[in-house]
C-alpha cells in the first residue's frame, strides 16, 4: 500500500444519507477478477441515464465540472449494505483518498482502510459546515495529528483512528504482512486443545 500522510484538496459533496454499496458500484459490475478499473462505474446509475455512459446526468455531482478533488463528503451511514470491497476500489480508482461522513457502515470502513482510503468520521455539526462550503474551498486532513480542517476558516475537528491502523496508513503497511509475520503464533494457537 502507498503511505498516506496528508491530504489537501478540494472536495466533492454528496449530501445524501444511507449511500449503500449497491449505489457506489452496482452488482453487475462485480464480474472482474482484478482490482482495477472500477472507477469508471463509480455511482454508475446515479451518474448516467439509462446505463449509457455517453449520457451523463447533469445534476449528479461527479458530472459537474465545478466540483473535483480527492475527498468525497457524504451524508451519514455511508457504505451500508453489501460487503463488496469493489466499492472501496471504485472510490480509490476514481481518485478519492478520503471519504468524510458523520457515520460509516462497519464493513465499508474496514474495506476502505485496507485500501488506503481514509474514512473520516466527523460530528453532524461539522458535516453541516462542510456541506455549506463553496466549490472552491479546500480542506486539509492530517493523519498523524488526526485532524480535518477547513482551510479558509480554520475550523477543525479531531477524528478517531486506532493506533495500529494509523501506523499502517502512515507507513503503507498492510494487515496481511502483519498476519504472515505472526504465523508462528497462529500455529501455536492451533495446537491448543
Amino acid at each position: 500500500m502507498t503511505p498516506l500522510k496528508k491530504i489537501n484538496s478540494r472536495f466533492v459533496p454528496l449530501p445524501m444519507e444511507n449511500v449503500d454499496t449497491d449505489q457506489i458500484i452496482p452488482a453487475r459490475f462485480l464480474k472482474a477478477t482484478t482490482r482495477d478499473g472500477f472507477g469508471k462505474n463509480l455511482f454508475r446509475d446515479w451518474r448516467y441515464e439509462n446505463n449509457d455512459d455517453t449520457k451523463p446526468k447533469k445534476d449528479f455531482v461527479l458530472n459537474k465540472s465545478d466540483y473535483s478533488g480527492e475527498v468525497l463528503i457524504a451524508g451519514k451511514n455511508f457504505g451500508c449494505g453489501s460487503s463488496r470491497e469493489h466499492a472501496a476500489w471504485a472510490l480509490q480508482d476514481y481518485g478519492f483518498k478520503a471519504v468524510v461522513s458523520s457515520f460509516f457502515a462497519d464493513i465499508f470502513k474496514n474495506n476502505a482502510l485496507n485500501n488506503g482510503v481514509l474514512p473520516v468520521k466527523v460530528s453532524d455539526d461539522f458535516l453541516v459546515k462542510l456541506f455549506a462550503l463553496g466549490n472552491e474551498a479546500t480542506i486539509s486532513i492530517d493523519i498523524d495529528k488526526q485532524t480535518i480542517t477547513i482551510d479558509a476558516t480554520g475550523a477543525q475537528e479531531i477524528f478517531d483512528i486506532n493506533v495500529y491502523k494509523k501506523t499502517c496508513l502512515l507507513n503503507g503497511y498492510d494487515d496481511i504482512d502483519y498476519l504472515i509475520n505472526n504465523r508462528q503464533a497462529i500455529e501455536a494457537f492451533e495446537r491448543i486443545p
Partner: protein
Amino acid sequence: MAKTLFDKIWDKHVVQKIEEGPSVLYIDKHFIHEVTSPQAFNGIEKRGLKVFRPQQVVATADHNVPTLNQHLPIKDELSRLQVEQLIENCKKHNIELYGLGHPFQGIVHVIGPELGITQPGMTIVCGDSHTSTHGAFGAIAFGIGTSEVEMVFASQCVLQTKPKLMRINIEGELPNSVVSKDIILYIISKITSSGATGYFVEYAGAAIRSLSMEARMTICNMSIEMGARGGMIAPDDTTFAYIKGRQFAPGEKQWEQKLNEWKQLYSDVDSVFDIEININASEIEPMITYGTNPGLGIAINGLIPVTDTIPDEGERKNIIKALQYMGLESGKPLLGMPVQHVFIGSCTNSRIEDLRLVAALVKGRQKNKNVQVMIVPGSQQVAKQVHAEGLDKIFIEAGFEIRQAGCSACLGMNEDKIPAGEYCISTSNRNFEGRQGAGARTLLASPLTAAAAAITGVVTDIRELI
C-alpha cells in the same frame, strides 16, 4: 465472571490482541464464492503463498450462476470467466468446491447449515455480508471484504476490533400468519438501517426460542440490514436436533463431547450488554417495505409515513427520495397496489420450510395473470426436497416458475432481473435502488406475503386469505 455468548466464543478465538489496535481472530470456517474471492487468490499468489489451511475453506458458485439450464455453459462471458476462475483457484489450492452440477451446490448461506458445516461455537467468515445467517447456530459469523478474504487465505485469521454487544429480547407469542421475516423487518423498522452499526446482536426471548432453525437463519441473515456486524442465537435442543446426522456434523463418536461443549454456549444470567432492546412479539404484524432501505418498513395494513411530519431533515429528504424512486405516495396504503413480479428465494428465504409455507398457501390456487412468479430454491438439496415432497407440482399448477439454485433476482448480477419501473414483492433482503436490476422497485416481505400477492396480483394482507 459472567460472560455473554459472544464473549465465550470470541475469547476462545483470539490468538493475540494488538496493543491499541484490533485482535488477531482465528477463523474456524471460511466460505468463499466466485465474486469476492478472485482478487484474494491473486493477492496471495503475488506474495508467493499457498492457502494456509485449505481444509477449512469451502467454496460454491452462487451469485453469478444462471437459474435455468445450469447444465449448459454460462452465456454471459464475464460471469462464466469468474466461475471458471473459482474452479481453477480451488483446484490449485486444494479447496473443496461445490460448483455448478455438484449435488451440494447452492447459495453459500444455505449450504453451510444444511450440510452441517456450520456449528455452534465456531468463528465463520465469508466475503459476503449475509454471512451473519450462520449466527443462528450460536456462531460468530460475519461478512468480510476481499482484503480480509486474502488475510484468511494467508493466515486463517482476520484482524478484528471487538464490537459492542446488543441483545434484542422478543418475548410473548407471535400472532397467526406472522413469520420470522416479519420479526426481522419489524426490528429493522424500529432500529433503522444503521441503528445496530458497531454492534453484534444476540436475539433472545421466548419468541426466538420457539422458532425453527430455518426461521432463526432468516432473522440472523438480515442483522446486517440494521448495520450490525452480525447476529446470533444461543444454541438449544432445536439447534442440536437440526445438526445431528447431517453430512459434515460430528459423528456418533464425537457427538456427546460436542454436545457438552455446545450446551455451555449461552449468555450467563448476569452478563452485561451495551444495549438491550425489548420487543413484544404480539405487537408484530405481517410487514412490508415501501422504501429503498430495509429500515423503511410498515405493517402490511399500515400507511406510508407522511413526509411533511418527519422532523429530521436528513430522514425526510431520504424518504422523499425513496418514494420518488419507488413511485409511491406519502401517507397512502400499500394494500391493494398491483405488483408485476414475485420473487421467492435468496439466502434469506429459500429454504425448504419457506417453500413449504408457500406451497401450503397456494395449493389448489392459481397465480394472478398479471404477475410473474419465480421460485428459486436456495440449493440443489432444497430443490431435491421440493421434488421429493411434490411441492413442484403445486407450484407448477399455480403457474409459478421453479428455477435452479442460486442468488438469482436478489442482486441484479446474473440473468434474473426485474425490469425498470416494475414492482416486485421479494423475499430477499435488500430493496436498495437498482438492487434487483436498474430501475427495479422492490418491496421486501415474508414468503407468505409474497405468495399472497402472487395469487391476488396486489399487495395483500395474508390474514385475509386464510
